[in-house]
């Protein structure tokens, strides 16, 4: 059947239900703060945020695919591009750019100038080492997991830590092949 052409991020963002970014920003902020209060260890908080992100990602990917009927990407390069151009736009209303490809095209950086998560945020001195936006990396990891790409997502630059932009490094660990319901030896 004739595949429907993928839609641009802006087109989708224009159509989806939207809410005040403030609500989102503040809520996330409150969550992070509460986590810090309860878990006390910054490292632990980073882990939890990533975990939460992952759980969100594995659900969100389907919505993403459904709304932005993108077809299967040929390679990792294309995938990351879609995430940056369409994914971020469609959910956060901002666009990211993809840079710093390595030679074999399995590792790149998603660069984010603007990030609604961190409006108003200033890290207190006792929370250095906190990756405030760690939830994002989790989401990406989770989402890619669902389309059978095992990845490793790490923060390279963080505005809250004095850098000029946010930079997420996405490294493709392995491309899990489709598993078949029967074993070959059967």
């Amino acid at each position: 059947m004739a595949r429907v052409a993928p839609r641009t991020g802006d087109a989708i963002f224009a159509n989806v239900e939207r809410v005040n970014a403030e609500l989102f920003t503040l809520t996330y902020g409150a969550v992070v703060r509460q986590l810090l209060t309860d878990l006390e260890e910054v490292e632990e908080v980073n882990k939890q945020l990533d975990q939460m992100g992952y759980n969100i990602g594995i659900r969100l990917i389907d919505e993403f695919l459904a709304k932005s009927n993108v077809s299967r990407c040929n390679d990792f390069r294309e995938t990351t591009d879609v995430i940056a151009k369409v994914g971020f736009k469609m959910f956060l209303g901002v666009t990211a750019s993809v840079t710093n490809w390595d030679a074999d095209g399995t590792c790149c950086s998603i660069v984010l100038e603007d990030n609604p998560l961190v409006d108003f945020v200033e890290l207190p001195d006792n929370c250095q080492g906190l990756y405030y936006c760690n939830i994002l990396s989790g989401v990406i990891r989770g989402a890619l997991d669902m389309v059978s790409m095992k990845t490793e997502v790490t923060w390279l630059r963080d505005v809250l830590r004095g850098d000029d932009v946010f930079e997420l490094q996405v490294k493709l660990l392995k491309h899990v092949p489709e598993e078949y319901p029967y074993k070959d030896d059967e």
Partner: protein
Amino acid sequence: MANFLAQFQTIKNTSDRLVISVEDVSDVWPTVKPAFEARLPFKRATLNNKTRNPVLVEALPAEFILTTDARLRSRFPHEQFLFWFREPYATIVLVTCEDLDEFKTILKPRLKLIVQNDEREWFVVFVSKAHPANDQASKMAKKVYAKLEVEFNTKKRERCCKYDMHFPEANFWEDLESKVMECIRNTLDRRVQFYEDEIRKLSEQRLMPVWNFCNFFILKESLAFMFEMAHLHEDALREYDELELCYLETVNVTGKQRDFGGADHGDDQAALVNPGNKALTQIVQEDSFREFEFRQYLFACQSKLLFKLNRPIEAASRGYSFIISFSKSLALHERILPFCMREVWVTTACLALIEATTSNYKDGLVAPDMEKEFFRLLGDLYSLARVKFMRLAYLIGYGADIERSPVNSASLSLLPWPKPAVWPTVPADASTEVLEKEKLILQTTSRTKSFGIQRKPLPLEPTVLLREANRRRASLSAGNMSEMFDSRQGPMEGSGFDTPTRMSPPPKALASSSISRTNSSPGNFEGSIDRPMRLAEIFIAAEHALKKTISNPELWKSLSSSEEFEQKYLDLTRGAADNYHRSWWKRHGVVLDGEIAAVDFKHGHFDQAAKSYEKVCALYAGEGWQDLLAEVLPNLAECQKILNDQAGYLLSCVRLLSLDEGLFLTKERQAFQSEVVRLAHSEMKDPVPLDVSSLITFSGNPGPPLALCDKDPGILSVTVWSGFPDDITLDSISLTLNATYNTDEGVKALKSSTAIVLHPGRNTITLDLPPQKPGSYVLGVLTGQIGQLRFRSHSFSKVGPADSDDFMSYEKPAKPILKVFKPRALVDLDAAVSSALLINEDQWVGILVRPVNYSLKAAVLHIDTGPGLEIKESHVIEMESSAGVSENDGDQVQNDGAEIRTLNSDKNFERLILRDGKIEFPNWASDIPSILWVLVHAISDTLSRGSSSATTRRESIVDGMRTIALKLEFGAFHNQIFERTLAVHFTYPFYVRTRVTDKCNDGTLLLQVILHSEVKATLTIYDAWLDLQDGFVHTGQTEGRPNSSFFPLIISPSSKAGILFSICLDKANVEETREKPESILNIKYGISGERTIGAHPPVMNRSTGVDGARQELIFRSAITLQRPVLDPCLAVGFLPLPSDCLRVGQLIKMQWRVERLKDLDEAGVSKQNDEVLYEVKANSGNWMIAGRKRGYASLSPQQGARIIISVLCMPLVAGYVRPPLLGLPDVDEANISCKPAGPHLVCVLPPPLSSSFCIPVNP
């Protein structure tokens, strides 16, 4: 027209009430005068105000003046209208007359003449002299009066009234007054009308050059004055307001420079509340009104009216803003005014206004909030006066006496410095004074704060003045034009704010006054402008200048000496503070109290000072204004120190320490600490309690709480933050734990006996923890001792330093720091053998020791055997780890059993020695299950009894039961005790039953012996023989052994085997008494068993090892053989019971049938053999025998005779029980055949349920 001013004012001053002229036609005035004047002032009058609305005036003053009076004659018509307010407002025509003719001829024409002039408001009063007794006369009077009325009354207005000299009519005076009022009202209206017209005319041409404010003023004020006379103060006030407005509009805009005024002597004293201060002629010169005087004059008039309206509050508020605005214009003209005129004026003005308003103010006549408002105004006035006064004092060198507090620096530094045209120079002859001052300055060292606190000088240091003064002189000398006119640039210029910015001074100059003093060279000081003046010179110069300015003696007095100054300063400050306290502005009040305190302090009134300071501190602390608090708190502390209020002093020190770090230098904070320590260790009479919650905070360590078991001591480590700048030694410290859930559990205090040194910032201290009750605990209060000082801290590290978590956590529950678990089995002791052991043999009994998540390190086991059991001390005790055992336990143990198996695949084995009943556990056994093998020996001297078909087996567990009491001491301090008594069951290898299987006709009996194996081990029987009791003999020659082909006979666990013996009755000696009542069965057997299973070969040759080596045991069992009933002559039969009716507690009749089977042969039969003795045997626990147990029943000797013996019984227990037995003691058992032969059971049902009838039912 200005030349009228003088006259105008005199007139104004002379005339102060309404005039009523009296036309005394017939010379009766003298006689009536007293009566008339008695009516003055008029009680109530209704007049029309400017807007023609009736206004009620109380007590309207007026004056009767005869028209012939000089004051009313000789007026120039042109001044008439100008001073119209003084003209009569009513004219009373007094007449009297006795007869009509006289009236007609003389009086009437005269009156007509008088009243023809319509300018005046008039009416006629007819005075009747007629005495009432003489009614002739009075009639006449009436007639005349009637005539009079006819003549002068018109329909629209009554102009006559009649006054009876002797008996005035009741309503006469009302009549009179109403008429007077009518006249006054009309006159007033007319004149108001006139003035207004005039004023309108003038104000229309206001913008024309010819226009002259003076006329306007006179008209306006005349009108105002008229209103005032008529007590219409509202209107009067309005006139003045309009006048002022007009003045400000017209006068100040017009370009041409007017004389400002205020140059005269005494002008420095504000005259804003006395209008008569200066004659108008002085105020006005060639048509120009001097602003200085005139505005004060206007305000004075206004305030006067306000007071008359008794609105002192409004007066105050208007006055305040007037002063503010007026001082602005004073600033504008400062250059032409005397030195510091402005400051002086404002001071005096405020004081005057305060004086006037307060004297006119009566408490409680206004709403409370209005009142508060009023006091606030007074407060403002006072503080304004205070500030200006301080500035003056400062100029002449009392600066050192002024407290350098935020308040003063704020108010002072916000004031502009005086900007005289020429800065006063030192008079030539003042050299001595200057030297004096120099000395004075050098002496007065500004008080250093306690604790050696260094404060950067607030901007009212002398240097500022020095700079300011010299700057101005320099700039003026340089002819700096901008400076010439800088007074135009608005008051703010040169005010404290931009002072520092403008002349960005080198820090050295700013450092302190002393420097500037040293670098000022003494010597020739002819006011040579280029040389900067020295401070002393400035002071002296200012002093002289001020002396010229200030005319008010006592103001000068209060500046004459620093003591006087201080007095005044105090008064003003108090005034301000007290009033603020009564207003909304508490803070202002409290802060000023602080200033008062400073002075008190200086004079050594430390307790007052302390009180005030405390208030201030409370204010700042309560609202968290630490910077300000840091200013005052040291002073408070010092007071307390001096007052020797140690508790207070310590507290202050602590509070100082707990302020923001940045507020004090480390050096200073160290000083605070050293004070605390010093006091703590100094000799204090009684220990002082101190709350250091803000300084020492504590919390549990991050991470999970310390977990302990019930009755476990432990070591608790707590994080403590110290706010002290240096290490501090706590002699002792104790921390309370609060149980979170069970509140009945009180607070527990943990003490640390040893001294603890707290470093600044984070510390971790450890306290050893006595055993606690189960539950979870949070930290409570930290208390401790520094020398004599008992401190306590409640706070957790919420306010702790930065490294502590300081996130917004609304109701964050206090984190439990300690969890003590419920008492639970920490270890389990159990018998490791699965079945009974052999009695009378050495046997290994295994004790399974299983720690339950708890270490048995260095545990000690006490073993105590019960009666009938002994431990073979000779032998060692063996211990081995028993991984295998843990399989069949709960999963809890299961999985740690699992991990055990992994960690020690090789089973540990060890031999231990039992020392006086105690065993020490090896370490390897502290965490894993292990078995302790103890060699025991159960002794029982009784033979086991077999049972025959006749007698059934008597089961009794107890005689096989032995107990081992175990007591395990373990835990870190052997504080945990676990006690258990193990029951070990011992048994004989066999249980023997016999029965006679067959009777051969040759009299041989086959005796079957059935062996039940009682053990879970295989038994091998090697031999068995029977020692027969009397009455029986063995047949054959087998010596009572079965033929040996039987043996060895293997009996597998818990199975049976049988052996046959052939015996026969011993005919020989039936009769003789039996000394061997029972036969003994001997069995030689072996056993092959494993000790974990249970009965097993005894240890001795187990130690020699080889189980192949067969070792033999002897088992002996007693059995009673019954002679079979060979010739039955009596038969006893148990009659069946009705099936259902056997219930606990219900009587039942048991019946036996006794039958004679055959005649007894004569031999051995007693004569009374027609009677049989019977006896009922029953287990009394099960049965209650109601009838006779024993008795004789007659039974005829003939064969076949039968009787029924019946006995009433009641079953006591439910279940299957053996019924009572009927026995016949007299008859040889051999002759009785029973039916049923063997013992049998009957079923007893439980009792019918009923609450009334209960019997314990044991299962």
